[in-house]
């Protein structure tokens, strides 16, 4: 009986130590959040999760289990669950009818919980939902572009938001480019920011391009973006030969190819001719033997 007791206590102690050890081995974690609202009014929360073992630096937390919650009064309503990628990143598309508080703010809480590798952690985001719209006349030669920031009040009316910095950009192939050196305009009392678009920005073959107005990473609104196509760009004709043959180009000049082919081809021709002659030596020997 005593032996059984000792065995049970020892087993429990070992298991307890193992569990504690496993818990002690978990990495510290942290979450950074950002919010963006696109032209189609889709709202996305991006999370960057970092992990750190004791004595090491923070590095992206791969395959961490993340839960996204919306704050409804004092409760948290689960929106979605996700797993981080190799760079510790993940995101969630927020529902259109997000619950708002009395100040017209919405709250998002992101939690790293019940993960075998990382310790639990959470981060909260509280932002105001605003709309950003662009008004422009595509054929306006003065190239005046107006971006309007509005919010819906508690009584359901639309109201302009003043003193919001709006940045104006042009969409390029791999990102956005500031439309001018001074490309930030604050909204007025009506919530409007008027920007005179500069001339000479290259567009496509018909001068078409996409203009972008953005509230960039604002503490109160996050990132809100609106895009619109227009024909304000400079017409750039299609290059007939965008990658000409040259020494420092993608393709070698014909002169070089021909010269090298003649030189090396000539030498290798001699080699093959020699092999042909040597083969004849062999054939002659065979004929001698046969005769």
């Amino acid at each position: 009986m005593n032996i059984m007791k000792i065995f049970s206590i020892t087993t429990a102690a070992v298991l307890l130590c193992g569990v504690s050890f496993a818990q002690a081995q978990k990495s510290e974690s942290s979450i950074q959040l950002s919010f963006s609202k696109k032209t189609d009014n889709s709202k996305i929360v991006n999370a960057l999760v970092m992990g750190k073992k004791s004595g090491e630096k923070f590095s992206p937390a791969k395959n961490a289990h993340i839960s996204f919650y919306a704050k409804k009064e004092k409760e948290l309503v689960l929106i979605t669950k996700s797993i981080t990628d190799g760079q510790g990143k993940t995101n969630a598309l927020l529902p259109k009818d997000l619950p708002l508080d009395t100040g017209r703010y919405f709250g998002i809480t992101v939690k790293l919980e019940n993960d075998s590798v990382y310790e639990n952690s959470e981060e909260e985001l509280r932002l105001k939902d605003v709309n950003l719209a662009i008004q422009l006349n595509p054929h306006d030669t003065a190239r005046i572009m107006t971006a309007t920031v509005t919010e819906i009040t508690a009584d359901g009316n639309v109201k302009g938001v003043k003193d919001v910095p709006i940045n104006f950009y042009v969409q390029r192939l791999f990102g956005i480019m500031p439309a001018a050196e001074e490309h930030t305009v604050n909204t007025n009392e009506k919530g409007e920011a008027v920007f005179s678009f500069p001339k000479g920005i290259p567009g496509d073959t018909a001068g078409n391009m996409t203009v972008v107005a953005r509230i960039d990473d604002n503490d109160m609104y996050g990132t809100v973006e609106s895009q619109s196509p227009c024909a304000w760009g400079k017409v750039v004709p299609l290059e007939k030969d965008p990658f000409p043959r040259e020494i420092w180009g993608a393709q070698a000049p014909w002169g070089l190819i021909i010269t090298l082919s003649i030189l090396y081809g000539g030498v290798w021709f001699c080699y093959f001719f020699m092999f042909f002659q040597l083969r004849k030596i062999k054939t002659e020997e065979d004929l001698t033997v046969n005769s």
Partner: protein
Amino acid sequence: MSKTIYPDSNIPAELSVEVIREDSLRPTRKWGRSTQIWLGCLLMVAGWGLYAYIHQLRHGLGETAMRNYVSWGLYISTFVFFIGISHSGTLVSAILRITKQDWRMPITRIAELMTFVSLLFGGIMPIIDLGRPDRIANLVIFGRVQSPLMWDVMSILTYFTGSTIFLWLPMIPDMALSRDRLTVCDSRFKKFRKWLYTKLAIGWTGSKTQWKRLELVMTIMTIVIIPVAVSVHTVVSYIFAMTLRPGWNSTVFGPYFVAGALYSGSAIVILAMVVFRKLYHLEKYITYRHFDLMGRVVLALTLIYAYLNLNEYWIPAYKMATAEGHLLHDLFSGSYSTAFWLCQFGTVLFPIIVMCFPKGRTPGMLAFICSLIAVGAWVKRYLIVVPTLLHPFLPIQDVPQDWAQYFPNWVEWSVTMGALSGILIVITLYAKLFPMMSIWEVVHGAKVEENKRIATEKGEHEEEELLKAESVHAKTSKGKTTIVMANGNK
């Protein structure tokens, strides 16, 4: 199979065809204990080099001393050195063959063999320098024709193929001889040798048509191999000269590399001549005259190399442009100055002075001088590659200490010594399988000498007869007392 016919008449008694053949083939039948010990030692070094290379392959190039700035270290220096040696075959064999220098005959095979082995291992060195050798295939798949690296691969491949053919062609009649002699002589690996000699002899019987064909292909090969060899080292110089770096940005690099290659290559041939002459008792064939003539060749090449060397350093030193100036200061009076000046004085100027005197062109002296030249040429390649990489146009700042300096570590030394052992293993195995002299050419040379001797004796006899007749005529016609000597002097 019909018996081989050889052009073998009128050979002096002391150098009869049979003596030449036996002297050439005898060493291939012996595998003495010393050979086995020598090969064993070389295999151990090569094995250690292979272990170091596998270590480098498993753990990456970070296991070497090479870092971001010095990415071409000992491996690429050795590559340039080995490619340089490969010019020996072209010089001694092709150039002397085309200029009809008959004295070359006993040493052509040694020179051609040096070309073959140095190219074989020289070509491997850049692959060793790659952290991921499997990516060499990318050169073929994605290679840019505009890149000097691509030209380098093409040139070396072409030259290696040509050199292998150039080594093999004069071997064909000798292979037939070895094949036929094997039936009567006792030797190791008899079956393998029989098979090898038969394959390499490609059914040579020595018929007139076969000789005609062989002479044709050898003439073509002799003409073709010279520009190919010159192009190889020129292109090797391009991988340096076509980059914008202090010390490499030079228009003289092409001829400078070719001259340096011929200078070091011919020195290596002399070293090999000394070794094989001694080991294989070839004193009758590789005489003092050969050393004297090869010494003159090396002297001429050293002078050309010295002239180009002067141009390479004097012109930028006169200008001392900022970046070049930093490099030159480091070479002339900085951390590389000892090696630099030892190279200039010890392996260029000193050999010139010594080889100017006939006593400096004896086998012993030449062995010493050529050893200096060989080591100096290797160090010089290192001085071309490494200091330039440590002096980029944008100064090295805020980097770990080991990035801003370089000296090869045990991995690089082991791999390089392994490659050197590989060269010596191939030379040893070759020398134990094949004759180290081109037998038929030496026989031909002996025949030419014999004909010359007969012609000279005949000429002297006729001259004596003529002088006697003249002296009698002089006495009788003028009636004066004139003493006429047999050689015609009064």
